[in-house]
């Protein structure tokens, strides 16, 4: 049981970190009693290491997801500008083709859409029930923009379709890819004139 807990805790750390220090930390944890404060310490530091090693795209995505969750939604234009900016930054920082910038924007878009997709899955499973009267006909919300999704939900006059929740963030991906790629192209142009 202790071995299993220690192995699970170590999985919180990023793989490159585990390769370097994992064996030492594992031995240390197995050699002493596994108290709650030690588990908390390893947990906290594991998440910190994970955050430190995260790609910028993931951090931007998480930040925007949190913004959307605390109900401070961005309008579409600034959101697209962020995707463009991330594409530009990726191109200037890492070079390469502009498709890499597009992939970065897609990654951000997926992360931002995760809560919306989870909501859709929960609605579908009947775990989550919206406050909007179900008697009204199901409709497709304008949820293709996850960042302004919650705002759209508040002003909705009909019950949202679970499938709409579930797939709406995916509908955003081509647009995200396009803006990220455009940012990447712009970055390549800047690099060429520098």
């Amino acid at each position, binding site marked *: 049981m202790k071995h299993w807990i220690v192995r699970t805790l170590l999985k919180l750390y990023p793989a490159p970190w585990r390769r*370097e220090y994992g064996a*030492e*930390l*594992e031995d*240390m944890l197995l050699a002493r009693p596994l108290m709650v404060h030690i588990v908390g310490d390893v947990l906290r530091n594991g998440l910190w290491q994970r955050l430190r090693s995260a790609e910028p795209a993931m951090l931007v995505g998480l930040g925007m997801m949190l913004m959307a969750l605390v109900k401070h939604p961005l309008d579409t234009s600034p959101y697209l500008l962020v995707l463009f900016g991330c594409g530009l930054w990726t191109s200037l920082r890492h070079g390469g083709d502009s498709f890499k910038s597009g992939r970065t924007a897609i990654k951000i878009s997926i992360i931002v859409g995760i809560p919306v997709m989870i909501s859709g899955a929960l609605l579908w499973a009947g775990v989550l029930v919206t406050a909007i009267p179900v008697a009204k006909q199901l409709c497709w919300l304008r949820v293709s923009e996850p960042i302004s999704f919650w705002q759209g939900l508040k002003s909705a006059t009909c019950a949202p379709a679970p499938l709409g929740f579930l797939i709406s963030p995916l509908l955003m991906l081509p647009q995200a890819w396009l803006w990220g790629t455009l940012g990447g192209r712009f970055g390549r142009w800047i690099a060429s004139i520098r």
Partner: protein
Amino acid sequence: MARKSKTGPASDPELLILSSLASGPKHGYAIMGDVEAFAGVILGPGTLYTAITRLVEKKLIAPESGSGRQRPYKLTSEGAAGLTEQLNAMRRIAAAGLRRLRPA
């Protein structure tokens, strides 16, 4: 997490590890015991290895090739210089503070 109620620079995990390694190379478990003995601070295993990671990245300490899974770490010349500088600064501050606390 550095446990016990000590706060301030005296409980900074990086400084404690550097001070521990000043007496010679040690592996993680030995550092933890040494820090507890000389500073009275119990470093959590996660905190210890997070601080070791940072110190290795800053090139203030370096792993030695050890036997088994536990590698000893040693202080580098940059680490020794940095530690000396920090401890001297702390000594100056401590001396000034104590002088001012003394009744005139």
